[in-house]
């Protein structure tokens, strides 16, 4: 007798339990990656600059993130007198929350078969599969601007204000380029749901059956330009290093977070790394076939995400910061026209060959 496979909507209690477990696991893994991304970043950049990076706390400095966390936790929490308190306290939360929420729609692996009392249930390895998945991520990316803007505005300090102004101009410009580059992916996959996009990428490359079957139709092969635009655009959107003008240490004394101390400052740092993980996960899902690959489901996914994180760290060690006019020129005069052109070309190609 073949076991009956049911979806979890038939068992509400089990559904709730599975949901809770998924949320807790995803959240704690994300937080672990965030904590150890700081360690990896310091180690890797250290090696690239022929230094050692952290070595003293624990073996190879492995306890460094915990030590840093404890240190920041016990520092005095200063709120400037002139600051507008409500927005000042709200800003670090507003920057961290969207980065974490976006993880809710990302598929980590294939369906997991779970047997309970002789009945097999199908658990998707994704917290929730919205049929507007990508739009949800874009919406959350749009909300991410508020954290930085509010931090800059409410601190009531000129460096913070300059950082906030730079951040909002930069993030609005690059959000457009990153968002426009994703549109070609919907055109090819004909769905907005992220698990649907992963499923569409498991077919044979470009629909040519003569190619070997292990070559899957990852969108990086059909949309290399969109991939490049998305990675650069989202790096600018999360203020990673060649685009970290809002927190330029040398000219703005770390910009929008100048006035922050203690745990609030730590939240900004966590948000930066959480954004990095989220962007890596989105790029993996949209362009690199999600959890598709040679290993077991979620291991592929993690390998790709870590690859992206290494790439971001590598870029940080390699490129100098852009000047502000160069940044705006790149965003509006190069990336947005390229993204629009890519949409037109893809539309014609889809009309001709699909």
């Amino acid at each position, binding site marked *: 007798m073949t076991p009956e496979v049911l979806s979890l909507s038939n068992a509400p209690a089990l559904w709730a339990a599975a949901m809770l477990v998924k949320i807790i696991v995803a959240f704690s893994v994300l937080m672990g990656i965030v904590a150890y991304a700081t360690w990896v970043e310091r180690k890797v950049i250290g090696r690239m600059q022929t230094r050692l990076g952290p070595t003293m706390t624990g073996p190879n400095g492995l306890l460094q993130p915990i030590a840093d966390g404890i240190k920041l936790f016990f520092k005095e929490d200063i709120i400037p007198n002139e600051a507008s308190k409500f927005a000042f306290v709200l800003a670090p939360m507003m920057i961290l929350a969207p980065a974490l929420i976006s993880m809710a729609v990302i598929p980590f692996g294939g369906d997991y078969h779970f047997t309970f009392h002789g009945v097999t249930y199908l658990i998707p390895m994704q917290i929730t599969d919205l*049929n507007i998945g990508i*739009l949800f991520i874009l919406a959350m990316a*749009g*909300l991410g601007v508020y954290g930085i803007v509010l931090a800059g505005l*409410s601190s009531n300090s000129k460096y913070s204000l300059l950082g906030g*102004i730079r951040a*909002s101009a930069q993030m609005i410009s690059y959000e457009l380029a990153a968002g426009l580059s994703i549109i070609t992916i919907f055109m090819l996959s004909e769905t907005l749901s992220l698990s649907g996009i992963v499923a569409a990428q498991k077919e044979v490359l470009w629909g040519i059956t003569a190619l070997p079957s292990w070559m899957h139709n990852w969108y990086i092969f059909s949309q290399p330009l969109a991939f490049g635009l998305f990675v650069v655009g989202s790096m600018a959107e999360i203020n990673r290093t060649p685009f970290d003008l809002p927190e330029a240490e040398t000219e703005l004394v770390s910009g929008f977070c100048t006035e922050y101390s203690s745990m609030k400052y730590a939240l900004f740092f966590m948000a930066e790394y959480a954004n990095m993980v989220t962007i890596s996960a989105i790029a993996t899902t949209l362009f690199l076939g999600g959890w598709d690959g040679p290993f077991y489901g979620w291991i592929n996914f993690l390998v790709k995400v870590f690859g992206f994180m290494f790439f971001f760290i590598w870029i940080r060690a390699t490129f100098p910061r852009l000047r502000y006019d160069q940044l705006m020129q790149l965003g509006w005069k190069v990336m947005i026209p390229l993204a629009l052109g890519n949409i037109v070309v893809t539309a014609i190609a889809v009309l001709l060959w699909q």
Partner: protein
Amino acid sequence: MLSILFYLFAVVSIFSAFYVTKSRSPVNSALWLVTTFICFAVLYITLDAPFMAAIQIMVYAGAIMVLIVFVIMLLNLGTAVKKRYTHALVWGGGMSILMLIVTNFFIRRSIPTGTVGDITTQTIKSYGHTELIGRAMFTDFLLPFEIASILLLVAIIGAVVLSKREV
């Protein structure tokens, strides 16, 4: 469950809409307005319109309000812009109560017959909200859609011309 959610978000949205006008610092007003938009997005989701919800957050909260906050930041408006009390508050309150009565009158004037149109919850579930909106926009409402896009194009050109006086 759904009605609890509805009342929760309706109360929060009304509360935050009230604080948009009451709050004395323009930044806090803007924040309350964002809260209102997010509550609207949740209400759209409960009405089986997830695409509208995403667009609501992307366009209103993610783009328009960011621009407004950006302008507030550039102008550096202090907290003293709004006085604590003006006569406008009384007039505004009176107007809104009047509007509420009129709306209530129009809602209660007719009796719902219970007939449904083509698009039901089942249709939305099977086709997807985005697909339905896309199809309607590019087939039935093609002309209004094109007119709206030309209007936007004119606005873009106007903005470029206005901001760039000498070429």
